[in-house]
């Protein structure tokens, strides 16, 4: 979504840059840091292999090892920004910015089922936006199923505003820099 008028006038933030560590609501120490292909690829694939298909949205994450691997190749490719939430050695959450035109990116975030509802999504999202700001992204958009009120509330909390509510999916946008 590259139409500048669909984004809020004022930049949101400031957001923290990775790495950041918080205790989640279940007293688990959760670290959000930049994704490292060499260190994290296997753990990230394991997270998506364990992901509950009932939480898929608009076809992602895909199912099956091969489709997951192809998809991860795309969304962790050059010019993308990726952060992972880790607990001990496991990757339990992942958020990504994929370029979509000049200084613009599409956002997605996934948290493993056992770690949902513990405040990790907010932490992951804010740290991703901090990394996105540092990487020079000015505009970020996402789409979310319009009945997914917890997700919409989370996005609004960090500063996203609705940009297209007409279609099947609800689109939201945030400005990171002028």
């Amino acid at each position, binding site marked *: 979504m590259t139409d500048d008028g669909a984004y809020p006038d004022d930049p949101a933030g400031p957001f923290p840059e990775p790495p950041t560590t918080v205790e989640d609501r279940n007293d688990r120490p959760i670290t959000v840091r930049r994704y490292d292909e060499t260190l994290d690829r296997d753990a990230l694939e394991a997270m998506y292999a364990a992901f509950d298909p009932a939480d898929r*949205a*608009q*076809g*992602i994450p*895909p199912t099956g090892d091969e489709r997951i691997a192809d*998809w991860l190749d*795309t*969304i962790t490719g050059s010019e993308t920004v990726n952060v992972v939430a880790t607990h001990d050695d496991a990757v339990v959450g992942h958020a*990504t910015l*994929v*370029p*979509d035109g000049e200084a613009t990116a*599409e*956002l*997605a975030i996934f948290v493993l089922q056992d770690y949902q509802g513990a405040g990790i999504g907010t932490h992951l999202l804010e740290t991703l936006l901090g990394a996105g700001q540092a990487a020079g992204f000015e505009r970020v958009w996402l*789409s979310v199923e319009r009945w997914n009120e917890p997700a919409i509330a989370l996005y609004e909390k960090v500063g996203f505003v609705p940009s297209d509510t007409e*279609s*099947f*999916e609800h689109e939201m946008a945030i400005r990171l820099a002028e």
Partner: protein
Amino acid sequence: MKLLLGIGGSDDSIRALERSVERAAETDDDLTVAILQNPATEVDPAEIETRVQAVLDEVGVEAAVQHLDGDPGSRLVDLAEREGYDRIVLGGGETSPMGKIKLGSIAEFVLLNSHVSVTLVR
């Protein structure tokens, strides 16, 4: 089976065309291609017709081709119901940079309003 393929020029509609024509060659489906005005694409209908003919010729399938003016979704549903089609076939949506599928407005309208079964091609 009597199939009505709606095509407005988006990439997913072109894929639906190719797959439907290949399938018609195998199954002897009776295929009609309806060229729609998709406000999201701005592809010239004459250009779409050239593309449709090329695919039909290449695979060796015959199909009636017609142009539907006006609102694409409602005209397509109306034609399918009026002329007793068994199925409407449409492209299954565009993919965002992230890999998310987004249904087009025509598919959304047809899915919600058609009494004829609908196939979305992936």
